[in-house]
């Protein structure tokens, strides 16, 4: 698995497998969209539809939520007495334009979506932005501790017998310090 035998073929093979898995995932995990329901209303009548491709609130009124999707905005009607807001205690009025959300609806004939459950995720944007910080931090640490030598990456400190230098990122035992 880790030998140099057929190394380039292994690398190419793994890349190919990953692309194949992404392709298979795209086929298997593509949930029906509102556009799919409108194309075949009889097939999807009464089915639960997840609105899932980075949905964001465009508008919330008393009667409907307008949600952004790659194919265009999706209007979801709010039924009378709707109580499917998560987490518990949250209200529809908490949803602001631009907020991320999760929404599940039911496709009804002749061709509209009726809200079944919704969860506002206003902190998602902060989650994405703050997650960039550890990527930068770990990236900087990796730049200090990994070198390119003779066609391979090498993790420092390099304890091989022909190492010509020692990084100052190691302690007295030769262990990398963080």
């Amino acid at each position, binding site marked *: 698995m880790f030998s140099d035998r057929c190394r380039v073929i292994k690398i190419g093979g793994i890349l190919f497998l990953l692309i194949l898995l992404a392709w298979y995932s795209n086929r298997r995990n593509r949930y029906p969209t509102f556009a799919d329901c409108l194309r075949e209303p009889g097939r999807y009548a009464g089915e639960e539809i997840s609105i*899932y491709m980075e949905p964001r609130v465009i508008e919330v009124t008393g009667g409907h939520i307008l949600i952004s999707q790659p194919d265009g905005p999706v209007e979801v009607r709010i039924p009378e007495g709707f109580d499917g807001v998560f987490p518990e205690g949250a209200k529809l009025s908490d949803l602001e334009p631009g907020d991320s959300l999760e929404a599940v609806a039911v496709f009804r004939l002749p061709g509209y979506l009726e809200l079944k459950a919704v969860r506002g995720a206003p902190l998602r944007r902060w989650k994405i932005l703050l997650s960039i910080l550890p990527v930068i931090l770990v990236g900087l640490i*990796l730049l200090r501790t990994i070198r390119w030598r003779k066609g391979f990456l090498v993790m420092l400190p390099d304890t091989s017998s022909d190492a010509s230098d020692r990084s100052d990122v190691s*302690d007295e035992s030769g262990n990398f310090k963080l």
Partner: protein
Amino acid sequence: MPDLITHIAGAYLAGRGMKIARGAALFYLGAMLPDLITRPFHILYPRLLPATMGLHAPVPVFLACWLISLLFRIDQRRPVFWLLFSGSLLHFLMDTAQKHLTGGYIWLFPFSGRQYSWGFIWPETSIRFLPITILIVLPFLAWNIWRNRKARRKDRRPISD
């Protein structure tokens, strides 16, 4: 998923507990890897979500760790792989605690499409707890930095005759 700061905090504490010294940065990279190979794509291009959903699973991440380890010199490939993959497994463990209304994690992809989680917290809850997470990690980090500086000062002291 918890945010990556929470993932790294968990990885840092786990790494200290397991006494991972050499290559700790690769363990932290592993703790972010499942998100790094999926999230940027579907956040920037939402239509890619169905394609990336399956890649956030142990089998594709195993392949990604193997691929990265093959870029290293032969004597380091095995430890690099295990550092990356164990960090990734920790990531999956933390993600399992979440609940979702839509989507979820397909742990046995490509062998099964079943989604499973413990359903304890919503994904953005980790942001609300971030100050507490940082307060927990900071003492360990500070102690480690102080210990390393003490060791370096000891190294530099001249040896008396």
